[in-house]
């Protein structure tokens, strides 16, 4: 059975064998290109992952800065509250002095206290904004972390894809070599033969067309065409067997 199939394969017309080998070459070349592309994409993925890690680092530093800012704002708030107490105490001293002497002190204390109260309100507003920024930063950090995880998975998949493309390329190379041996023909020779066959077919067609327009004797035409047609017909049974 093996001999039969071998003989079938060996009976494969060179043009067919050349086409199969050419197709294999094309697939191998495409696989090599795919491998190169995969490698480039893997490198791009690794770079993207490094950038994401750097962005995460920056976010964490931003969080630390936010904490520092909140601590310093707390100090400012405490100082303002102390100053408010001082203004109230100045007012109390003025109140004890009584009108009209202490009135100016009371009014000044009141004015200072109002200004400080505005400062405390502004600080509260800053604190609220800072908290909102912190929440947004935390959300962005979580999204970046998810993105970094996805990038890691993607890089790993791409790497596996590149390895598989390289393996496919190697396997195709071996297959091509094996098929060349099985077909019993050299790939270059098979390609030349296939090309010759095509040229014979074209020449035959041209001669037939010429005979319609030019007065070529039938015998002369038969003499020219018969060897060529015989050559083409000789290929057909082998192709039919396949």
């Amino acid at each position: 059975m093996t001999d039969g199939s071998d003989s079938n394969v060996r009976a494969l017309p060179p043009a067919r064998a050349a086409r199969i080998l050419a197709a294999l070459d094309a697939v191998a070349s495409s696989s090599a290109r795919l491998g190169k592309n995969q490698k480039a994409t893997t490198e791009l993925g690794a770079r993207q992952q490094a950038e994401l890690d750097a962005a995460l680092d920056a976010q964490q530093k931003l969080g630390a800065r936010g904490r520092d800012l909140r601590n310093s704002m707390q100090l400012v708030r405490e100082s303002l509250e102390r100053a408010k107490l001082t203004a109230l105490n100045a007012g109390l001293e003025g109140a004890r002095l009584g009108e009209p002497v202490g009135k100016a002190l009371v009014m000044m204390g009141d004015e200072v206290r109002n200004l400080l109260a505005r400062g405390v309100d502004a600080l509260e507003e800053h604190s609220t904004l800072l908290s909102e920024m912190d929440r947004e930063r935390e959300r962005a950090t979580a999204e970046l972390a998810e993105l970094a995880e996805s990038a890691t998975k993607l890089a790993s998949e791409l790497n596996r894809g590149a390895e598989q493309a390289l393996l496919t390329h190697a396997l195709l190379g071996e297959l091509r070599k094996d098929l060349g041996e099985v077909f019993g023909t050299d790939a270059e020779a098979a390609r030349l033969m296939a090309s010759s066959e095509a040229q014979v077919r074209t020449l035959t067609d041209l001669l037939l067309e010429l005979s319609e327009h030019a007065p070529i004797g039938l015998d002369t035409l038969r003499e020219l065409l018969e060897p060529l047609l015989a050559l083409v017909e000789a290929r057909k049974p082998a192709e039919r067997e396949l």
Partner: protein
Amino acid sequence: MKDCAGLLVRRAGERLFIAAHVARHLVPSPRLSRLPWDSAQMALVGGEVVAVVELSEASGILVLCDISGQAVALSGLVALEVGFWPESEGGVRVNGEHVPALDLVAALAQFQTQRVEQVEQKDAP
């Protein structure tokens, strides 16, 4: 109607008036020490140990008062404003609204009653 000088405070949402000759000083709340078997608290203010009467939840400041020549600190008050306001019955009128004076005697009496009650409860068999 004469004007009264003093301090406006808030205790549990209610505005109250403390006369300037009673309210001496406002200080940030220092560390308070509770006396054993008693609801009374003590604090060191300006190098002097003073009794602290808790009138409401801590607000972060103490109002140092002079009550019958004794320094007493009040906690749980929020200082609002200092000024001169026209006297009204048992308080002052602030922007047309009556603000009662803080009844320090009642507060102290309540504080002392609570203290007695606590001692009695602890001594009960």
